[in-house]
């Protein structure tokens, strides 16, 4: 799905990145722990997070993440927006909480890019 479709599905505010709205997103990751985000490498990913500090933008930059969605209406400050502009990362802000936001995108077909079968501990 595209960043525009994510924005519409989450009723999100576009904080920055009008020109990136038609970019295709292939994977998603939801976390407030940046090291957990850094453990996961996927192309063309969106990051959903409730954490709002410059290290979120840095983490996205290192991972080549193309869009950040701040949940619970978190708003990045001017310095963070400036950093995102320099790195070409789109920023959205949604009123949904983390679980809800991830659930909505999952229902729209977005996935975390992992092998879900592998993590099924009920199968021996």
């Amino acid at each position, binding site marked *: 799905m595209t960043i525009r479709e994510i924005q519409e599905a989450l009723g999100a505010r576009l904080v920055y990145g009008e020109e990136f709205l038609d970019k295709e997103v292939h994977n998603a990751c939801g976390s*407030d*722990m*940046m*090291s*957990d985000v*850094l*453990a996961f*490498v996927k192309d063309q990913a969106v990051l959903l*997070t409730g*954490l709002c*500090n*410059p*290290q*979120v933008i*840095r*983490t996205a*930059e*290192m*991972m*080549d993440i193309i869009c950040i969605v701040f949940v619970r209406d978190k708003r990045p400050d001017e*310095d963070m927006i400036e950093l995102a502009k320099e790195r070409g990362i789109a920023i959205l802000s949604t009123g949904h909480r983390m679980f809800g936001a991830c659930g909505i995108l999952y229902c729209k077909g977005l996935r975390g890019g992992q092998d879900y079968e592998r993590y099924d501990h009920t199968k021996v």
Partner: protein
Amino acid sequence: MSDTITLKYDVSTDDFTRAGEASSDVKRKLKNMNVNPEAVRKVAIAMYEGEINMVIHANGGVITVTIDPDCITMILADKGPGIPDIAKAMQAGYSTAPDNVRDLGFGAGMGLPNMKKYSDDMKIETELGVGTTVTMKVFLAA
């Protein structure tokens, strides 16, 4: 790209918001040198985790990055407290970071495991009360 290029960064400790600037600079330089994107990402992530570690645990330090045609070497040297038990520190989820670091999104105990995961070779030299030097290599396919 036939010559060796060396980059040196002083990582200061007083401003957590600026942590990652060195890694960001290296990433941009490698990109401009047309190093393959997968290797660039590996270097960026491994170095970024190391840079964050320096700020959290060691009051900063010095990072030296050497770019050779076949290998990128990152040497992260600090004068911090040293690592008492490297095996424990390498365990995913083990962390000695203070709580305020967790509020900033780090301290999940994934720093060293991630550095090992993304580098092709990693060596840790540490002495209690003296400091730690981590050397990481990412090899470039010919």
